[in-house]
């Protein structure tokens, strides 16, 4: 058992710089915020093994208002229990995918996984409907009518479903994202 350190060593930082898209300042800031979220000053967390539960992570102001915060935590979590808890390295993965310098391929890959609510590897009609409801709001008066929803999903599938199987798989998603000019600027979280 190693000592639990709340400081990052230099080799760790340079290794993270190598493996992610984050700069040194961003890694250090991420570590600071991660430790702050832990809220327990007496036992500083061990970076490699300690997991923050999902309800603590979504207290981050950057994730608080995000309708996809649960999905984000589940996608980046490596825990066995699938409870959405993140280690510090998962947290770094999250920030790296959402950083400015991440490639479009990485961003679209993770976006696909975030939008794939049922986890079956494609975006079907149910996934798209849940996605639209997340975007517009969960209450009754902020939803689209079922007629409008059907029209919208038909339009989306018409634009993105190339092989006409009724679902959007990863390649089709990446293809439509590459032509979407807003994606890179909106798929961004900076601490």
């Amino acid at each position, binding site marked *: 058992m190693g000592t639990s350190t709340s400081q990052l060593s230099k080799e760790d930082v340079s290794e*993270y710089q*190598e*493996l*992610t898209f984050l*700069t*040194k*300042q961003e890694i250090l800031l991420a570590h600071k915020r991660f430790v702050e979220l832990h809220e327990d000053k007496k036992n500083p967390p061990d970076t490699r093994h300690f997991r923050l539960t999902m309800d603590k992570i979504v207290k981050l*102001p*950057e994730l*608080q*208002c*995000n*309708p*996809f915060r649960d999905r984000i935590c589940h996608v980046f979590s*490596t825990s*066995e229990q*699938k409870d959405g808890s993140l280690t510090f*390295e*998962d947290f*770094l993965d999250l920030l*790296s995918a*959402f950083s400015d*310098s991440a490639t479009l*391929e*990485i961003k679209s*890959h993770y976006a696909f996984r975030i*939008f794939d609510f049922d*986890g*079956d*590897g494609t975006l079907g009609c149910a996934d798209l409907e849940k996605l639209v409801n997340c*975007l*517009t*709001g969960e209450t009754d008066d*902020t939803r*689209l009518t079922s007629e*409008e929803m059907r*029209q*919208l999903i038909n*339009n*989306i599938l018409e*634009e993105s479903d*190339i*092989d*006409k*199987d*009724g*679902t959007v*798989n*990863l390649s089709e998603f990446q293809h*439509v*994202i590459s*032509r*979407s*000019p*807003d*994606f890179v*600027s*909106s*798929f*961004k979280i900076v601490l």
Partner: protein
Amino acid sequence: MDSDAVFYTDRSGIVTSNPLLDQLPSYQSLLYRRKSSNGGTKRRPSSRSRLGSSGSWKLSTVTRQEEKQRGQTLQRPIRELAKTINEKRTYKKQQDEARELSSWGQWRQSTRRYLRRLKEEAQGWFSSLKLWRGDIRLIEGMFGTGILSYFSFLRFLVMLNLIIFLIMFSFVILPIIIAPKSSGNITYSQSNGNVCSVYPSSARRGLVVFHEHLTDLLSGGGFLEDTYLFYGYYKVDKIHFAQITYSLPLAYLLATVAYMFLSLIWIVKRSATGFKQNLIQDEDRFQSFCNKIFAGWDFCITDKNAARLKRSSLLYELKTDLEEERIKQKIADRTRKERCRIYLIRLILNFFVIGVLAGCFYSIYLATIFSQEAQMKDEKGNSHIDLIIEYLPSIVITLANFINPLLFSIIINYEDYSPAFEIRFTLMRCVFMRLTSIGVLLFSLWSQITKCKEETCICGYNHVLYSCWETRVGQEMYKLTIFDFIIIAAVTLFVEFPRKMMVQYCDCGVVRWWGQQEFAIPQNVLEIVYGQTICWIGTFYCPILPAICTIKYFFIFYIKKVSLIKNCRPATRPFRASSSHFFFLGVLLIGLALACLPVTVSVAQISSSQACGPFVNYSTSWEVLPATVAQLPNGAQNLLYALSSEVFAVSFFVVTCLAMFYVIALAGAHKRVINQLREQLAMEGRDKRFLIQKLCQAQGNRAVQSKSQPQTRSRSSPSYHTSFSSNFSESVFLAHPPPHSSTHV
């Protein structure tokens, strides 16, 4: 799609997983891209369940596939792989062990890594130097990327104006300043005693009261007239330094051309990224639904209110776009009689709009003429009235720009266009209105300048009234800039702030109907593009104007930021970051084109004033260039004459047209190929499903047959790597399946 549904589908239309499908090579490659290393997947347990149904042979094909693709990914940097950090770490260790680099290779790798690290740090340092980084991040978090684009546009204009000022300063003002210090000899343009070169001084004599200083500051006259601020001060002809002779008129003209070009290139470069993507899109819809849904949420929003607003604006946008589709359908279904009626209404309303615009332009013309004549009278009236008369053109322009958008937005309701087109058309009308009003102002100024009592002016311009007409034009531009800034600050302080107070504390019906101020991005952008157009026109006559504009935009940033945070709410109809990027730069380019026109006309056509300025010895400002070229050596002269001849221009034009047609044809061919490939993909998908259906049938038939024969047969699904013939039974080729066979649910 329903007619060729070959899958087992349950009632909700969801395709259940088919074990055969999971073995397809394309699906395997998908899994690899999603899965982590072959050690196992921690994140995708569901994929395991799809893998599980097949036999052990499949793993070998999977590993073979994975190795091939891993070989392809060797070239990519590790961080571009979509894996967790732990997996990347193990992968990297494997790679390093497998590669067994020599010490030379290791050294090369470590230097490459070090250089990359250095480059990233330099980039990070540069971006931290960017102006207003913290403020813009705050605005982005509170309001999203649509409004952010307005503020980054403001920042771009501040930078642009600063660079333009640096160009004018370093080439025109700096030589004059350092000439005495570096023992340069300044030759001033000689006045040849002509009647044209009489320039009465406009400095105030005697005791000057303080408020007259203020008047001078606001109107650019009086003590400001004979300073570096205006064109008339630069009466220098040549500066003789130790080794070289610096020709100031040439530098003045070339600096003007340089800043126009620089603005053009910078704007085009900035818009090139957005434009490329729009060109590649082959849909006629500018903003597709996919863009709105998949890239719809700004992940950088941190404020609860902003999130709520974003949701409601997204909902509004989606509903409007869906409705627009329905309206388009309705428009296509219109009868002929209805169409004629609508066209008639549109024609009448367009005539009305043209009439309104003509009226506005005429009133600007009248106001300018009146203002100029009143200034010429030089009576010592009430100084406030004098100031108002001096600012009369600006006041009329601002009033027109205030009333017209309201009028246009009322009129457009009757013209029955689709909502998106309505917005764009109103915007176009407003843009046209704003930018043309400056042109009308300048035109009326010039008609005054070139109108003399006699038929043709002796000096080419009215030397009695306008002994230094460029300075007068510079003063008008200066006044427009100052007034624009005052109006923006005043509207924020005296209109928006009380409005917010009223909405917050007073709850009567009228106030609630009026509502809180919306931060309407198009109108705000038009305001600053208007200011920038004035700056571009005015820099030739008033070289310090870019610095004034830089300071003006600097303050406008903070005014607008405070106004946004305290007084306004974002507009209900959202402005997308990408389309706004395009819109801002498009309007700015129109402004630049409009600014080039008056400057070109005045440089080339109107005689430069002979009492002031650097071009005293030349008939027009442009003439300094041919005069200088004539002094160059013969070879350079011939080259320049050849470049400017008509032959060269025509052949250049023809070559450019040919290149353009070639590129258009190429794009058309690519589009056709893309369409064919899409159809082919859809067809391939259907082929695949058809074949699988046949295979399933064949399996089913074989199972039936094998029930009667007690032989054991391998029941594993056929592999795609063995030949088909050995696994197919004849039944597949004999019978066509009936539409509702046993394989369908």
